[in-house]
């Protein structure tokens, strides 16, 4: 669906934020885009929406260059930015003036989500809190039913019940025709929601694997004393949790936070094990 090839980007008079990025986003997946602060997650999402232009390389949505911001490309993409300002009009007026640009927009879905987020169509957006404004935009983004939905730190500003509500809503909208990319540095917020992990580190893609491959190749938990294999990564602060090659162990749930820290600490080891597992499966 969306392909990024050999992409480089830097802001004027500053170092490269993204270097030699190659990524492929396909329908039917929910991607978690992780990285430390300032690693270029938001920049990448803006490039994917055509809001920033790469210095080299391409960002293509179904073969169309995103930097051209053509109508046929923008019809299929919606970005929920991290920081935004919505107009000082009611939610209903916002829907009326904005929804007409999205051919697949569903009014019913929008107002259902607004209700679910405990908002009213008559609420004036400028009088809402930041978290509530975010809910309006998330609801709108979902209701556009674009093929590609990008969310930049969508859980920032949401309270704890709203975060689980968000996960529930996102899980309910996932389908095989839609591709969702959620960027965050709060990896826990996407627990049990995503099925593909991408991690940016040092301006490059440090990790790009589907979660089922991760759980096939890696084991997460507290290793026992009679474990033969050496931990790839371990953390004393989390009660001695570690990442081990799975080998013949039982499958464990992927600990996203541990995986993230592990990739930042030992990217080569983790990628080598996962690639080895994939090769073994092919053989």
């Amino acid at each position: 669906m969306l392909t990024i090839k050999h992409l480089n980007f830097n802001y004027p008079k500053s170092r490269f934020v993204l270097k030699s990025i190659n990524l492929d986003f396909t329908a039917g997946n929910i991607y978690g885009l992780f990285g430390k602060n300032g690693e270029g997650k938001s920049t990448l999402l803006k490039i994917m929406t055509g809001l920033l232009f790469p210095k080299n390389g391409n960002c293509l949505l179904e073969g169309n260059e995103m930097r051209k911001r053509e109508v046929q490309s923008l019809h299929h993409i919606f970005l929920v930015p991290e920081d935004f300002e919505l107009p000082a009009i009611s939610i209903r007026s916002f829907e009326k003036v904005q929804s007409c640009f999205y051919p697949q927009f569903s009014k019913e879905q929008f107002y259902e989500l607004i209700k679910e987020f405990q908002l009213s169509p008559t609420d004036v957006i400028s009088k809402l809190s930041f978290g509530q404004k975010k809910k309006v935009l998330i609801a709108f983004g979902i209701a556009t039913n674009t093929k590609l939905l990008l969310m930049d730190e969508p859980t920032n500003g949401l309270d704890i019940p709203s975060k689980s509500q968000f996960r529930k809503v996102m899980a309910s909208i996932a389908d095989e025709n839609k591709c969702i990319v959620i960027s965050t540095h709060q990896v826990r917020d996407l627990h049990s929601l995503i099925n593909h992990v991408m991690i940016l580190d040092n301006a490059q893609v440090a990790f790009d694997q589907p979660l089922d491959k991760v759980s096939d190749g890696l084991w997460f938990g507290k290793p026992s004393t009679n474990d033969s294999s050496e931990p790839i990564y371990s953390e004393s602060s989390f009660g001695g949790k570690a990442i081990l090659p799975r080998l013949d162990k039982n499958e464990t749930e992927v600990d996203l936070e541990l995986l993230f820290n592990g990739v930042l600490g030992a990217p080569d080891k983790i990628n080598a094990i996962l690639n080895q597992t994939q090769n073994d499966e092919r053989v």
Partner: protein
Amino acid sequence: MKEFSLLRIGHFIRRDIALHKSTFVTGLLVGIVLIFLFSFFNMIWDKQLSQDEFFGTFGLIYIPMGVLFTFSIFKEFNDPKANQLYLSIPISIPERLASKWFTAAILYTLVYTILAIITGILALLFGVVVLTADFNISSLFSIEYWNVLKVYFLVQPFFLVGAISFRKNRIGKTLLFLGILALVFTLFNFLLFGIFNHNYGLFSGDAVISEAFDKTAADFSALGRWFYGLLLGPVMLIVAYFKMKEKEV
């Protein structure tokens, strides 16, 4: 997929009006009050409101108000918090530009003209009753009206480019740029005049600059009108198109 759809332009105009309704209404109300007051006070001395006087007042408010409205509808474009959503709306750049220009030039002119004429007539009636002024209705077919419109339609695209180009102090920077440009072109005209006419001794003796310019105006008026007309109107719209195309958040 069509990159120029009148339907999308219509939707975008509707969006702009909905978003800037209060700015639009406030501006028009201020305009109406000012036109009423200026028109009424104008009748105190000579007991009449000539077309010249009315459209002088009209232009005095119509042009600055239109410029402010142009800046207002482009606010989203340079606002880092609003422009991500704004620029990702599925509408092409020619459609964006056409709708903005239509709103700030055509629609604004139509609404403002109708309201100004009605206000002018009310002021006139008030003047007739209170000041026993002469009653004569201003006509839209007068040359004064079309001259005011001509100035606005030439100047507005320049401010449109300013509204797109600058992030902060947009009006100040645009005015400064316009001032510098006017100065450069004055100098340019003066140099041209000197080059073409120095053999005729126009700079010697008592010949003054204003006289020289009068003569130049007579010789080059048609050429100059086209040059500046194109430069301030269509060329500025083309500049605006490329500025919008190159815009990043």
